């Protein structure tokens, strides 16, 4: 019998080494209840005593596992006194990387219960349930493998015996009640059906009432919303207690509280009903497994609820989206633009039509103003510009003066890069920002890089040959290249599994690839060799992306965490934990301060790179999210999923602001035009669709934001916003890219 994700492979990175010990260590941790005495000057004060205890427990754990540096950081950050724990193992082994453990929402709701588990049950704590608390995330990241919380403990909550034959009656009783309440409440209370159904079913299965469970499922599964179909299918295959161990979906459900948003009136109604009926079984489930986010005000309508629901663990709690996000753009460094008019005139003589006169003023003034919503320039350290970067910036600005202004009446031309003879092996595509190179990741573990300009790809000469060249000459950069190696295509070998994500560095010197083999590789595009293999995920890495400023990159994979790396560190700088299922796609915010991740749990999270906090949770998709795109101004996020819908999000307010329906299959790529007027989406249904992003966001600003409640009315205007549908020839669209002049490039493999 095999069980998924039981720790079978020894984790290979630094933290993982503590993995074997943590059980013992934690069981001996007494919780060290020294009360909160010290507070840092502007650090968040350690709140209630139990929270502090938690921190202390962590601290002790860190010390014991000889992660002195981390312990020190934690101690400082939490503002704990230095003698909070008697320093035992201060001999720093130096294995601690600069870890600031990523965290889920910081809400500490479960902290106390968790702590008690830490002290009581060692086995449970060892693998630390992925509660949405920072503590859990911390533990989780330490264990560094996507292990499940100990199954027996997790499931034990189901062991309470109710009369199995009554479950049916309970559920149908509640159903009758909800169907009988006023319309305005019915929609809200109907949200209860799905989580209750699942938990009751699991309880029945856990208590070995297989036939009752089957009957229960048969009777009520049809009532559930259609977007839970996928989960229900998994659930329906589960009929034995033994099978519950190792089933991800189940454990996700059990370990995270399903979040419902219900108005106070509706909640009172429900509570009264359950108390009158003495319906303890249901009440217990609600208490234990559900988190009901009560709000004051008008109950929401069915469509409002449907827009936001669909994720694995219900909606986001309101407070999860309250943190301030600096979504503005960073100030561009000022580079004096050398005006070589001759150059341009020469180009004009060649007969190339010039689209527009360069407007230097507008460009300059725009970048001088400091956006109040922008983060400080130094909020996270960014690499300094090299000379070559400055040259590239100048090129960029020149190009952008020739940019075509797109709009609903001026649609972009589309150029399609078809991968021929790919035999269904193409899994990822990326194009450099200047559209000179295109790279494909393939199922046969290779990465192939093509030059799409006449300029061929050349390797740097070997060391022996390099010794021979004249280093003083002006064209030394040209001389180091080996003419003999010039070719259109370079193949990079190194991975041992399909390459699921690739990303060019902004300076075009590097290429990242993430693979099923659990590694991310950094390739040099000068030598076309592998420079670094970043290990840490241990499970397939579904996506990776460079920061728009280079140096940093983010990756996410099957182990449900996203990691932030720097190219010169072989271990991650941040670990973003909180998703309940695989992270399927990752994107950097244009200002590089935030990272967005989309997941199979049907949520999108936005993480702060600085402190690893989750600052936004977006729910509303009904299927795994496979595409994300930030608008160029950083204010909005677009996401596409297997449900064929594109959703638009306002990052500042944390709201869904649009829904674009039209695609009939998974959306694998999204991209805003350079000025953000048009959103292009590419899908498995062999079409590229263009949407009027300007209109979608404009309509919104005239609308008064019901930001306080977060309950928005989405008008169904997909058809108005759809500017065009463009068919390919049996080619799924895997990647989209707007050139600097706003020509749309699309790429995919011909799939006869």
């Amino acid at each position, binding site marked *: *019998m*095999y069980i*998924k994700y*039981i720790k*079978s492979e020894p984790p290979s990175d630094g933290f993982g080494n503590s993995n074997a010990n943590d059980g013992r260590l934690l069981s001996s941790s007494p919780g060290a209840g020294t009360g909160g005495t010290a507070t840092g000057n502007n650090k968040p004060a350690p709140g209630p005593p139990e929270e502090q205890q938690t921190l202390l427990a962590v601290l002790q754990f860190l010390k014991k596992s000889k992660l002195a540096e981390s312990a020190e950081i934690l101690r400082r950050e939490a503002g704990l006194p230095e003698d909070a724990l008697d320093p035992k193992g201060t001999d720093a082994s130096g294995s601690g990387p600069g870890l600031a453990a990523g965290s889920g929402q910081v809400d500490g709701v479960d902290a106390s219960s968790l702590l008690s588990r830490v002290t009581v049950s060692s086995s449970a704590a060892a693998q630390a349930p992925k509660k949405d608390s920072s503590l859990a995330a911390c533990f989780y990241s330490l264990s560094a493998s996507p292990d499940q919380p100990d199954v027996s403990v997790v499931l034990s909550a189901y062991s309470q015996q109710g009369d199995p034959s009554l479950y049916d009656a309970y559920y149908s009783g509640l159903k009758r009640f909800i169907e009988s309440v006023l319309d305005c409440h019915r929609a809200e209370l109907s949200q209860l059906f799905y989580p209750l159904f699942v938990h009751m079913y699991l309880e029945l299965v856990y208590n070995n009432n297989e036939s009752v469970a*089957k*009957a229960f*499922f*048969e009777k009520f599964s049809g009532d559930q919303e259609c977007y839970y179909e996928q989960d229900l*299918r998994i659930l*329906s*295959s*589960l*009929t034995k207690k*033994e*099978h519950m161990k190792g*089933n991800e979906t189940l454990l996700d459900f059990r370990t995270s509280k399903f979040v419902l948003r219900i108005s106070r009136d509706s909640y009172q109604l429900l509570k009264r009903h359950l108390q009158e009926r003495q319906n303890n079984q249901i009440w217990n489930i609600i208490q234990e497994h559900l988190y009901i986010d009560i709000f004051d005000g008008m109950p929401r309508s069915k469509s409002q609820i449907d827009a936001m629901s669909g994720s694995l663990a219900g909606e986001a709690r309101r407070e999860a989206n309250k943190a301030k996000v600096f979504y503005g753009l960073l100030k561009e460094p000022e580079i004096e633009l050398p005006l070589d008019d001759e150059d341009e005139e020469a180009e004009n003589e060649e007969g190339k039509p010039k689209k527009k006169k360069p407007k230097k003023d507008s460009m300059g003034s725009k970048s001088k103003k400091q956006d109040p919503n922008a983060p400080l320039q130094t909020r996270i350290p960014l690499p300094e510009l090299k000379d070559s970067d400055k040259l590239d910036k100048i090129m960029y600005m020149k190009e952008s003066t020739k940019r075509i202004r797109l709009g609903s009446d*001026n*649609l*972009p*031309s*589309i*150029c*399609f*890069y*078809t*991968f*021929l*003879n790919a035999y*269904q*092996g193409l*899994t990822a595509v990326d194009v450099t920002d200047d559209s000179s190179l295109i790279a494909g990741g*393939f*199922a046969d573990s290779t990465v*192939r890089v*093509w030059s799409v300009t006449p300029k061929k790809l050349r390797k740097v000469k070997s060391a022996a040959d390099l010794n021979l060249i004249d280093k003083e000459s002006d064209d030394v950069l040209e001389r180091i290249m080996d003419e003999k190696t010039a070719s259109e*295509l370079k193949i990079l070998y190194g991975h041992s*599994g*399909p390459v*699921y994500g690739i990303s060019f560095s902004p300076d075009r010197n590097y290429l990242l690839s993430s693979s*099923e083999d659990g590694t991310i590789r950094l390739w040099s595009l000068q030598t076309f060799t592998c420079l670094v293999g970043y290990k840490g995920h241990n499970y*397939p890495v579904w996506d990776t992306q460079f920061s728009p400023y280079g140096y940093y990159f983010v990756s996410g994979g*099957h182990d449900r965490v996203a990691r932030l790396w720097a190219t010169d560190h072989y271990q991650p700088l941040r670990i973003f934990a909180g998703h309940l299922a695989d992270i*399927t796609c990752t994107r950097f915010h244009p200002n590089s301060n935030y990272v967005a991740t989309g997941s*199979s749990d049907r949520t999108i999270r936005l993480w702060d790179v600085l402190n690893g906090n989750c600052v936004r949770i977006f729910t509303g998709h009904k299927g795994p999210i496979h595409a994300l795109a930030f608008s160029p101004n950083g204010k909005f996020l677009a996401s596409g999923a*297997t449900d064929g819908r594109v959703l638009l999000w306002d990052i500042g307010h944390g709201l869904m602001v649009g829904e674009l329906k039209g695609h009939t*299959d*998974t959306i*694998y790529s999204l991209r805003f035009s350079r000025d953000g007027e048009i959103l292009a989406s590419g899908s*498995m249904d062999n079409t590229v669709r*263009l949407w009027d992003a300007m209109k979608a966001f404009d309509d919104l600003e005239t609308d008064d934001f019901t930001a306080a409640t977060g309950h928005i009315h989405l008008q169904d205007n997909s058809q108005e916003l759809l*500017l065009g*549908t*463009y*068919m*390919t020839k*049996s080619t799924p669209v*895997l990647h989209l890219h707007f050139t600097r002049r706003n020509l749309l490039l*699309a790429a995919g493999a011909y799939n*006869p």
Partner: protein
Amino acid sequence: MAADREERRFAEVSRDSVKLMAESAGLELGDEVAALLAEDVCYRLREAAQSSAQFMRHAKRKKLTVDDFNKALRWSNVEAICGYGAQDAMLFRSVKEGELFFVEDRDINLIELALATNIPKGCAETMVRANVAYLDGKGNVGPQGTVPAAVQSLSDDLLKYYQQITRAILGEDPHLMKVALQDLQSNSKIAALLPYFVYVISGVKSVSHDLEQLNRLLHMVKSLVQNPYLYLGSYVRSLVSSVMYCILEPLAASINPLNDHWTLRDYAALLLSHIFWTHGDLVSGLYRQILLSLQKVLSDPVRPLCSHYGAVVGLHALGWKAVERVLFPHLPAYWANLQAVLDDYSVSNAQVKADGHKVYGAILVAVERLLKMKALSLPQPAEGCSIPLPAMYSELYSFFGDSLAVRFSTEQSFGGFSPCTPSHFRETRKEPLGHVSNPDTTRKMPQLTANLNITLRPQDQSLARSSMQRSRASSSRSGQRSIGLSRDVFPKARFTSPHSGPPTFSFVIGGRQMGRRCQGRRPFQTIFVPTPPPPVVLPRVYTHKLPVIGRVCKPLRRWTRSHYSLHLPL
């Protein structure tokens, strides 16, 4: 039952399979153990299948491969299954006696393989090709449709293919043509050739003397339209115009009466409707344009009758709504012309008259379906503009008389009668001569009067009886007036039921029901009450139980035959 359904939601490994496998490994398993094992195996399989779907999604494929499944197995620490990585489908073979299915696993002679001289070539190098798909977002209508883009990128292979295919289709060998058409229908790599083929097809105008060639070209259209890999885009317009040419034009071939150009028109009309229903959305306003051109032909008295025939058949193929919209309002005007032709019994007119009968038949069929469809859609509130069914019926009846009424009967007594026999056609042409003295304005189809065989089916009887009982009180009025009244609606019904009944028309429509399983015609009934309740209660119910003419008992799978004008599946 419910449990049964639940079981069947997934593929199951049966207990017996588990036992068999255990036996093959030399183990003896008890029933209980086997059952438990089977259940566990099923669950594990499902779990692996579910997680393998994830690998498929990330590989951006729609097809789950063995590789995906193996990856799922590997990540759950199960040994992967080797040897099934091939892209091709596995062949299952069955052993009858043992009720066993297995994948064929041939022995491979390694020595032979190693010494083989014909070393297979590696597959072609993966490459990227760029092409500007859409210029300024207008690709869907603009440059896509022009030929040049394709010309440049035409490789030698494609050119050869094009030549072979056109030669095969337009050549003599029917077998070769079949093969070529088949390939045209399923080849996924001929997008670049589409403009060429469209050009070839547009050559219909130059071969209007050759029915055979026209037919072949139409078949070519059909193959192109059915090819799922082709995006026809604006070529639809060109194809439609070629097809319309075949439907409407007075082809040179039709000068000779021996040429069966009617069949060609029927086939072209069907093709038109097929193109319209499958690709109509590619060109905006296509439907309107088609209707307009059909209407133009129909309202042009100078056009020969075969063009009119084409127009009617075309309208009919586009659906009963088209018939209602164009043909029906136009009928009174057209009728006069047709009447004139049909009433001229001079010998010199014989040929034209025969054509006229063809048109007559086509109109009749179209109108019949119009009525039937209207009757069917009656329960739903129809759009306000349409004419109420009884009024329409009475108007049409004034043109067609009993030949229309007779179409709405239920009898199967003429099971053997097939309209597609040549004798029938001869009859059609010949028969009118016998009706020389018929002064009636209504025209009857020749066979109508010949054999009326009336039997009441028991179920109809009971229906009539029950309805009779419901309104016995009101049923015994004088019959005289009511007959007159009923005549307005269904005049000249041949058969009057001996029963009296309420003011409900029990209108039995005979016809083929939709669906695959229908054996012969199955009658279904539409009972409707005339919208203004008649002032006088009708003493009788007219159930039309007239046998139908020209009906085939067996439903024809293909209706691309020459008897199109008389047979139509409902």
